[in-house]
C-alpha cells in the first residue's frame, strides 16, 4: 500500500505541475488573444428578414418580467418574422452567463438582459458585442460597455417623492428609509435621492437608513415592526419597493398605529400597492409601468438591427442610456392610474 500511495503522490504532483505549467504559460491562445470583432449585421425586418431576439430576465419570478415581456411583444406584433425567446436564469448570475453564451452560440440578433450583477456579466456582454450582437440591459445594468440601457429613474424618483411628501408633513419630519439590500444599493438609488433632498432642504430628519435582506412583504413587515418599536415618533416610512411598503402598512395596522398619520411611500406601482393606496393604507408610490420599458427596449432593438448598430460599430461605446420617468401616485390620481396600467389588476375590483 505504501507503494500505491507513493505512485498516487507522484501522479498528483506531475499532474499538478502540468496544470500549473499549462495555466502559467504565456502563449495560451486564450490569454489576451485579440478578440475577433464583428459589427452587428443589418437585418431588414421591414421586408420580412428573419430576426431572432432573446430576453434573459433575472428569473421568471421577477415581478415586472411579464409586463416587460408584454411591452416587447406588443412592439413586434406586426412582425411575424421577429421571434423572441425568453430564458429563466433563476436569479443566479452564473446561469445568466451560461444563457448569454447560449444566445451567442445560437447567433441571436439582439439580447435583452436584466443583469443580476453589474460586473460578472461584463466579459460575456463584451463577447456578445464583439460577435455583433447588441446587448440592451433593462433596469439592472452592467458596468461593461454595451449598446443600450433602459430603466425607470430611481434617484430622481426618490428625490421627487421626497418633494411630494415634504408638502404633506412639517419640516424635519422624522423619517426611516426602508432601503434595498446592501448589494442592490448601487443600482437602486431611490433611497439616496430621498436622502439628498432631505439634506438639501432639511425637510426630513433621517432616523435610519435600514438595509433589508430582501425586498418582500414579510421582510418589510418585520423591518417596519422593528423600527416602530425602536422609534415611537415616526412621521414617514419611505420604502424603496412596493412590497416593503405593503409590509410596512400591515405592520402599522398590527401595531394599532394606523391613525397616527404615518406616511408610507413605495416604489414601482405594483397592483397590490395601487390597491393599498386606493384603500388609504398607503400614501403613495413612484409609479412606473414596465410595459413601456419593454416597449422602448424592443423599439430600440428593432432600430439597431435595421441600422446594424451595436457598441462595436460605435467604437466600443454606449449608444443609449434611456431613463424613463416615474409618476407620483397618491389617493388623488390612483383610480385614473389603475385604469391605464398594464400591471395585471384582475385580482382587484376596479
Amino acid at each position, binding site marked *: 500500500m505504501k507503494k500505491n500511495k507513493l505512485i*498516487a503522490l507522484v501522479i498528483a504532483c506531475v499532474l499538478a505541475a502540468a496544470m500549473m505549467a499549462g495555466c502559467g504559460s504565456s502563449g495560451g491562445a*486564450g490569454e489576451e488573444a485579440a478578440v475577433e470583432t464583428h459589427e452587428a449585421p443589418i437585418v431588414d425586418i421591414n421586408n420580412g428578414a428573419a430576426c431572432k431576439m432573446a430576453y434573459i430576465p433575472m428569473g421568471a419570478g421577477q415581478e415586472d418580467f411579464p409586463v416587460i415581456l408584454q411591452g416587447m411583444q406588443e412592439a413586434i406584433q406586426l412582425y411575424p418574422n421577429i421571434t423572441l425567446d425568453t430564458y429563466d436564469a433563476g436569479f443566479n448570475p452564473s446561469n445568466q452567463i451560461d444563457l448569454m453564451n447560449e444566445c451567442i452560440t445560437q447567433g441571436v440578433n439582439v439580447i435583452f438582459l436584466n443583469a*443580476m450583477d453589474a460586473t460578472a456579466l*461584463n*466579459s460575456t456582454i463584451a463577447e456578445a458585442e464583439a460577435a455583433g450582437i447588441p446587448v440592451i440591459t433593462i433596469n439592472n445594468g452592467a*458596468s461593461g460597455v454595451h449598446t443600450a440601457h433602459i430603466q425607470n429613474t430611481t434617484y430622481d424618483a426618490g428625490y421627487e417623492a421626497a418633494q411630494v411628501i415634504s408638502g404633506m408633513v412639517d419640516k424635519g419630519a422624522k423619517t426611516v428609509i426602508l432601503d434595498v439590500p446592501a448589494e442592490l444599493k448601487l443600482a437602486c438609488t431611490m433611497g439616496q435621492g430621498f436622502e439628498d433632498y432631505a439634506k438639501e432642504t432639511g425637510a426630513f430628519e433621517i432616523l435610519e437608513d435600514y438595509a433589508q435582506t430582501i425586498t418582500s412583504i414579510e421582510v418589510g413587515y418585520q423591518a417596519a415592526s422593528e423600527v416602530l418599536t425602536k422609534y415611537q415618533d415616526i412621521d414617514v416610512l419611505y420604502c424603496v419597493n412596493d412590497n416593503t411598503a405593503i409590509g410596512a402598512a400591515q405592520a402599522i395596522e398590527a401595531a394599532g398605529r394606523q391613525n397616527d398619520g404615518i406616511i408610507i411611500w413605495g416604489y414601482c406601482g405594483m397592483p397590490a400597492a395601487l390597491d393599498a393606496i386606493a384603500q388609504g393604507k398607503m400614501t403613495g408610490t413612484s409609479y412606473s409601468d414596465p410595459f413601456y420599458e419593454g416597449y422602448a427596449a424592443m423599439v430600440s432593438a428593432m432600430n439597431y438591427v435595421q441600422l446594424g448598430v451595436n457598441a462595436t460599430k460605435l467604437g466600443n461605446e454606449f449608444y443609449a442610456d434611456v431613463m424613463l420617468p416615474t409618476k407620483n401616485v397618491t389617493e388623488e390620481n390612483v383610480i385614473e392610474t389603475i385604469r391605464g396600467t398594464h400591471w395585471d389588476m384582475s385580482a382587484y375590483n376596479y
Partner: protein
Amino acid sequence: MKISQKFIRKLITLGLIVILFAIFAFTAPSFLKLRNIQEILRVAAYTGIICVGSSFVLIGGGIDLSSGGIICFSGIVACRLASIGMPWPVVLLVAVVIGAACGYFNGWLITRFYLNDFITTLATGFVFTGFGLLAILKDESGTLMSQEIKNKGFLLLGKHLNGFYYIVFVWIILTVIAWFILSQTRYGLHTYAMGSNSKSSEMSGVNVRKMKVSTFTICGACCAVAAVFTVAYQTTAYLNLGSGMGFNAVAACVVGGVMLGGGKGDAVGAFLGAIFMTLVNNGMYKYGLDTSWQYVFQGAVILIAIMSDAGFAAFTGRRLRALAEKNNAEEALLEAKAKAKGGNV
C-alpha cells in the same frame, strides 16, 4: 469476456449521453458548433469538479449540501486576494485551504456530535455564505461593491487554450486522481467499505470518523478549486456564487451511478453525470421552449436517467437472486444425492 455490472452501469449513462447528443445534433442547428461544445465542457467542468468531491462523500455514505456556501466563501476570498494583486498560486492555495477547512468543519461536526449529514451541511452552507457576506467588498455605508478583478495572472485561470478552458483540463486531472484514489488505494477501499456498511467497516478496523472527515475535506477543497476557476472566468465574485450547486452536484453524481446511501459509484460516473446534466440544460435552450416547459423537459430527462438506473438495479438484483437461488438448489441437490448415497458432502 466478463463485463462487470459497474461497467454496464456506466454504459447506460454513456448511452444516454450519446442519445441526447445525437438528438440535439440532428434537431438543433447550433448544437454542433465548436463554441457550443466548448461551452458545454466549461459548464460541465464547473459542476464536474464539485462532483469529484461530492462523489467521495456520497460513496462514503454521506451527503454534502454545503458546496454552494463553500464555493461562495472561498470564491469571494479568492476575488479579494486576486484584486489586491496576489499571484494566482497563492490565491488558489488559500482558497483550497479555506474550502478544505470548511469541509473539515462539516465532517468534524457530523462525526463529533453524531449529526445528520443532510441537515448539518444544509445549515453550514448558510454559515459559509454568511462568511462570504462578511468577506465581500463593501463601501463605508455597508453597500456591497461589485469588484472587478484586473489581476491578469489570476484571470489567466479563466481563459482557454485553443478554445478549451483550463478548468476542463483541471476537471479531467482531478477525475483521474479521484479514480485512482478510489479504485487503487486502501483509502478508496475504506471509503467504499464505510459507505456500504459503516458499522462493519469500523469493526474491521477502519477509522470511520477520520475517513468521514477526510471525505468532506476533499469535497470542500474541490469546491474551492471550482470556485477559483469560475471567479477567474467571471472576473468577479458575488453572493449567489455557487447557489444551488450542492443539489446540482449530488444530482449529477446520482445520474452518473453514485448511489445515495453510499458504497457504489466512482469518479468516472460522476464525470459522466456532470456531462449529462450540462447536456440536458444546454440542449433544451436550443428549442425556444417556454420557460415552464424548459423545467418540465429538464426534470423529465433526469427522471428518465434515474429510472433507467433503477431499472438496471432491479434487473441485476433479480439476476443475482436467481443466481443465488440456482446455487442453493444445486447445493441442495448435491446434498440430497450425497445423503442418498449415504456419504458426507
